[in-house]
C-alpha cells in the first residue's frame, strides 16, 4: 500500500504520531512503574524510590505464600491449558472442516464462555460442584479455567485454519493418505502455530485469572494471594513478584506474535 504523497496532510500525521506515543506510554506506564518499584530500597509505594536494592526480590522469592501460590497457579495453568488445547483444537476442526446440521449453533455454544463475565461463570460452577461430587480446590479450578481456555484455543485455531485450503486434504487423500495420516501429516503441522499460540494464551489467562478462582480455588492461586497482600500491606514485595510475572509474559509473547499477526490482519474479531 502506497500512502498518497500529498493525500494526507503532514500536520495530521505529526499530531497523530505524538498522540500515539502518549497512548503507548499510558499503556506501558504501570508495568514500568511496577518493575522500577521492585528495586526500591524504601518500604512503601513512594515514587521515585528513595534508593535501589534487590531486597524485595529476595523477599518475594522467600515468601512461602507466594511460592506456594505460584506452584498452584502453574499446575492449574499447565493442566487446564493442555485440556483446552485438545478440546479447543478438535472443536475448531469440527467447525472448520465439516458442514453439518447444528454447526452454527455448535459454534455459538462453543464460543459462549468467552462472552460471559468470569464472575458469573465462577459463581455458576460453584453451585454445580456438589452435584458433580466435587468441592472447591485445585481440580475445580482446573475445570473452571478449561471452560474459558477451550473456546480461546478454538478461536485461535480457527483463525489459523482460515488460511487453510481444504483442497490440501483432498490432495492428500488423492495421493493415498487416509484420514488419520492426512490429519497428522498435513493438517496438524499447518495449524500448529495456532494451537501453540492458543495454548499459551490459555495458560496466561489461567495464570492471571481472578474471577473464576475467586469462587473455586479457596483463594490459593498466585493472583489471589497477591491481591490479598496488596489489600493488607502494599509493599514492594508485590512489585518484585510482578517482575517475575512480566518476565513470564515477555517470554511468551514471541510465540504469540505470528498468530496475532494472522488474527489482526485477517479475519479475527
Amino acid at each position, binding site marked *: 500500500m*502506497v500512502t*498518497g*504523497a*500529498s*493525500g494526507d496532510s503532514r500536520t495530521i500525521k505529526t499530531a497523530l504520531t505524538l498522540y500515539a506515543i502518549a497512548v503507548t506510554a499510558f499503556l506501558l506506564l504501570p508495568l514500568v512503574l511496577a518493575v522500577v518499584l521492585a528495586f526500591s530500597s524504601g518500604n512503601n509505594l513512594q515514587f521515585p524510590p528513595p534508593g535501589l536494592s534487590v531486597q524485595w526480590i529476595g523477599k518475594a522469592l522467600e515468601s512461602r505464600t507466594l511460592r506456594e501460590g505460584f506452584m498452584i497457579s502453574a499446575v492449574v495453568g499447565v493442566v487446564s491449558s493442555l485440556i483446552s488445547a485438545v478440546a479447543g483444537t478438535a472443536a475448531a476442526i469440527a467447525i472448520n472442516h465439516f458442514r453439518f446440521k447444528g454447526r452454527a449453533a455448535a459454534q455459538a455454544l462453543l464460543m459462549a464462555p468467552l462472552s460471559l463475565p468470569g464472575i458469573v461463570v465462577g459463581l455458576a460452577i460453584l453451585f454445580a460442584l456438589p452435584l458433580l461430587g466435587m468441592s472447591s480446590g485445585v481440580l475445580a479450578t482446573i475445570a473452571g479455567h478449561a471452560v474459558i481456555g477451550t473456546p480461546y484455543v478454538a478461536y485461535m485455531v480457527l483463525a489459523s485454519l482460515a488460511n487453510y485450503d481444504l483442497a490440501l486434504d483432498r490432495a492428500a487423500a488423492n495421493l493415498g493418505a487416509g484420514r488419520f495420516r492426512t490429519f497428522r501429516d498435513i493438517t496438524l503441522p499447518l495449524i500448529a502455530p495456532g494451537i501453540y499460540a492458543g495454548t499459551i494464551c490459555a495458560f496466561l489467562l489461567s495464570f492471571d485469572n481472578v474471577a473464576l478462582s475467586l469462587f473455586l480455588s479457596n483463594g490459593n492461586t498466585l493472583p489471589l494471594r497477591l491481591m490479598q497482600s496488596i489489600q493488607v500491606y502494599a509493599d514492594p514485595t508485590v512489585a518484585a513478584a510482578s517482575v517475575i510475572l512480566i518476565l513470564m509474559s515477555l517470554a511468551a509473547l514471541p510465540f504469540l506474535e505470528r498468530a496475532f499477526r494472522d488474527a489482526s490482519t485477517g479475519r479475527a474479531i
Partner: protein
Amino acid sequence: MHAPAANALKIDGVSKSFNDVHAVKSCSLEVRQGEIISLLGASGCGKTTLLNLIAGFELPDSGTIQLGGRDITVVPPHQRRTGMVFQHYALFPHMTVQENILYGPKVQGASIEGLAAEMAGLLKIEALLQRYPSQLSGGQRQRVAVARALAVKPEILLLDEAFSALDRNLREEMQIELSLLLRRLGITTILVTHDQREAFSLSDRIAVMDGGQIGQIGSAKEVYRQPASSFVFGFLGSSNRMSGSVVARNNAVTDLRIAEGLILRCNAPGRALGSEMCVGVRAESVQLARQPTAVHRSHPATVSLATFLGQTVRSVVQIEGLSVVSETIAAADIELPVAGDLVFLDIAETAVHVLDNPGVPL
C-alpha cells in the same frame, strides 16, 4: 472530435523513483482536448505511477504537469479536478449508488441538481441508484465508478486498468459502450492497461511504456506496423525473432540467411556481406503456401503443431531445426494445415522488421 492544438494535458520531463527504483524516467506526453490515450505496458513499466502522478497521489521528483494550461505539479489531489476510475472501482461501501455519484460534487460545493439522474442516464444505471455497492454486479460497479468520476465534470478522466476485473465478454461490451460515450461527451481520457486489445479498441493514440519510459507514441496502426523499438515490436502481437547473416544486398534490399533453406528479404539498407542481423516477423505475416512461391527462396518446412483458434490457425513450423510460429486465417473454404504437412513459408519483405539497427528508423 479532435479540437486542434489545444493541449488538455502536458507532461514535461517527469521522473519519479521509489527507493532508487526509477518508476518513471523523464516522461513527456501531450494529450489533446478530447483525445483518448492509452498507457500500454507490462506490469512494473511505470504506467500506473505515471497515472498516479497525474492524479496527484504521487509527487514527481522532477518535471512539470499542466492540466488545461494550469501547472498542477504539486497541487494536492483533491484540488486537481481529475476523475479517476480505479482498478477495483473503490466505490464507498457505506454509500448508495446515488450517494457515491453525488459525493464528488458535494464536497466540491458544486450543484447536484438533477446530476444523479443525468449520470445514471448516461451509464444506464437509473434502476440502481438506491442500492449499495455490495448489491451490484461487477459490470454495474464499473458503470457506477465511471458515473462517479464523470459527475465532478473532470478536465481529464483517468482509467486505471478499469476493465481488468470484468469477464471477457462483458469487458468487450463495456469497452465499446464506454468508447462511444467518451467520444460523444468529448472527454479527454488517459487509460492505463496491459491489454493490447483494450488499448487498440478504445484509444486514439497509444503510448507504449517500458522501464519507466514511453517507448513510442502513435495510433494503433503506427505502433503496430512501424514499431520504433525492438521492445515495442515484441510487446505487441505475437512474433518470431530470428537472426541470420547477410548473403546479398542491393540498394535498399537485403537478403538474410536465417537457416539452411530459409532466406528472408527485408527492406533495409544492407550491411557488410556476412554480418549478423536480428529481425522479427509477426506470426500473422508468416503465410503457409502449399506450393513454392516464385518470389521467395524457401525450402519446404514441416508443420509440427497446428492449433485451431476459431478465426485463425496457429501453426508451429520446423525448418532446419528452427521453429517458426505462423498464424493464418481459418476461413471455412480453406484446407487448414495439420501436423505433418509439408508447406512453404511465404514472408513478405515489408513484414520483416530489423530489430538491432537503431540507426535506421523502421
